[in-house]
């Protein structure tokens, strides 16, 4: 009986300790998509999905989440060094970020690298060094059209879409991964709607 009680006590302690130890390693979003600040007359919406083991965080913001077919959305992607040491990001020209827009069925309709020539360039990679807490932002204009296939260039029809930004830079000393079939360090998503004009 003594051993049973002891065992139950040990089990209880292990469960608590296990939870306490493993909890920091769980992939928990620090914040969900939330409307935040006003930029002039337009609402900026930030999406913040970041796993806690990542030393570089990715935030995205758009000037509007309600768009008309063929209109242009201004996307701001911000990376921040959330770790205690300087980090080095290495990436090719025009390939710090990739952007994919998917329709409600999850089918990609827009791949940002389709719209430029950067993916065909062979120039040397660029380096971005971020001190602890430092951020780097880039603005990306995205036209709400199909980027490939037979409908390439046609306005996206009305509906709800998910815009996902992938940080495709590699971070020195911190492994990347394959996210949705892309070689990326982390990603962030936001929901947008295309409404009739």
């Amino acid at each position, binding site marked *: 009986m003594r*051993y049973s009680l002891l065992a*139950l006590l040990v089990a209880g302690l292990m469960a608590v300790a296990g939870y306490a130890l493993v909890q920091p390693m769980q992939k928990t979003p620090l914040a969900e998509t939330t409307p935040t600040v006003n930029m002039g007359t337009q609402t900026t919406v930030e999406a913040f999905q970041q796993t806690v083991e990542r030393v570089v965080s990715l935030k995205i913001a758009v000037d509007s989440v309600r768009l008309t077919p063929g209109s242009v959305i201004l996307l701001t992607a911000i990376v921040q060094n959330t770790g205690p040491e300087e980090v080095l990001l*290495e990436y090719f020209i025009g390939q710090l970020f990739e952007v*994919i827009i998917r329709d409600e069925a999850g089918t990609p309709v827009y791949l940002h690298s389709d719209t430029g020539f950067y993916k065909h360039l062979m120039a040397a990679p660029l*380096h971005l060094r971020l001190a602890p807490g430092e951020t780097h932002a880039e603005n990306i204009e995205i036209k709400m059209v199909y980027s490939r296939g037979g409908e390439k260039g046609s306005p996206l029809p009305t509906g709800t879409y998910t815009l996902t930004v992938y940080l495709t830079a590699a971070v020195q000393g911190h492994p990347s991964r394959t996210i949705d079939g892309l070689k990326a360090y982390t990603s962030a998503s936001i929901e947008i709607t295309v409404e009739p004009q």
Partner: protein
Amino acid sequence: MWWKRKAGFAAVGSLSVLAALVAAGFLGLMVLRPGEVVDEPTANAAAVPAQAPDWLNQHLDKLSGGALMAVLQAKGVTEYTLAGKTITVPPRASFDPTADTPVGTDPSIHENEPSITVNPTNPRFVVAISHALYTGYCAVFRSTDGGLTWSFVKYLPLRFPNDWCADPVVRYSPNGAIVYAAYMSIRDVNPEPDVVELEADIVVCRSTNNGASWCTTPVVAIPGGPGRFPDKPWIDVHRFFPGSNTNTKVYVTATVFTSTGCHIEFSRSTNGGLAWSTPTPLTPTDECFVQGSRPIGGKAVSSTVGHVLACWYHAEEDGWWTGVFDIRCRSSGDYGVTWGPEVAAVNDMQFELTYWLGPDCNYHRWWGAMFPSIMIGPDGVAHIVYTADLTPSDSWHGCTQDPFEDPPDPEPEYEGADEEAGDIFYVRSHGYPYDFWSFPYMVSRDNPGYAQGYATVNVKVINGVPVVFVAWLDHRGSFWTGAPNSKYGVYAAWTWPDKWGRFAHNIQISDVDISHSDFLFIGDYIDSATSNQANDPFVYLIWTDRSDKFSEFDFEDDVWMKKVPLP
């Protein structure tokens, strides 16, 4: 009986403990599970396993003697105790004329994508050039003792103060009087910090004292500007044909991206690189199928008749990084003033490489290995080497999933790039106008298959025989790691006229075969050079070396070279 009772209690207690542990584990899972359910894109991603930097140490005593010595040298170990016996490890850098030799090894600078040239009339002088990532410049290195020792000379000047450098290539003039360096000078022209708007020019800087000093301002050979972005330059000369008609002639090609497509442009200089012609498009300007061009000068017949060949990669109509591709060329009979029709030196080659080196896009940029390396020997024969993948992938980036596969293919014919992600192929053409080419011959032989790529071809005349030398980066040495293509070394093979159609066996050239692959970039080429001197029976080979690395997420690279003695 007390002991039996105690044993019984112990047994019950043990079972209770065991049960409690199982329960605790289950409870822990139950407690943890809510935290695991995270609706984020990375949740179902396969994480790349991280390896401790010193993971190899546990296997050192199991390595063969040569491999152990190579690893210890790469790690900078001078003494090592094995089974109670102390081994003295000689330094890797030595004055052995055929040892691997460090060129650029600054621990804070990422030296990669090197190019090399040797003075054709005096092989005591050798000049190398490479990226110096972190500085924004391209670095020049120089040897005055035939490549035995090297010293940093300077960073090459850029067109504007805040420009950065990429894709450097270096070549001696045919008579050894001038050293040319061609490279990209890139800048962000948008003053807004959050908006990137790039422009670039292909520029040339020269030295007239064997690389000791260089121009103060480079000359633009292929200009960029709004709506024009030139990329991937190459420069070359009439390598084996010195003379008054060729000594000051030098050629540059590049890929120019515009709003209507991308095409190959050619520019030439007839006064030793001081002034350049208006670029000539060699491919249609209203489409985009081409990259990776190189020019080379051939026989000089007279002051007006001289052969020039330019070749490049063509993605073919089925798209980039998928299906088949071509190596296409055009030739000129008047030193690049006018050009003949486009010819497919390699037609519908199976298959294209993926953007990243597989398997599963685990490693560095790879697709540039398809681009041709070309050389015209003293007999006027043209040689091309390039990389093709015998095992195709339907995923252009080389990962396991194509996000644009529509509808998603539940059973894709080809998944992501596998470990057999490239082999080296060779074709030749007997002479001008270079409109007939041999069938591709596979030079790399590595059954059962790992990736080979980024080949360089050169010619060295040995006892009057033009020996064709091919070297490449080879990942076959990664077989013992269990992680295909995680390691690479430099391999080579050669042939000569009596052996047409058949190369000698593949030989490991680099002393070490353990350069660790990079996650992003090790350079898009390696390079080779030869002199014209009979007492210099070497090919000078240069590559990006990562033999001191143990993780693909350590991005620092070095540049090493070797003088390869030919038979």
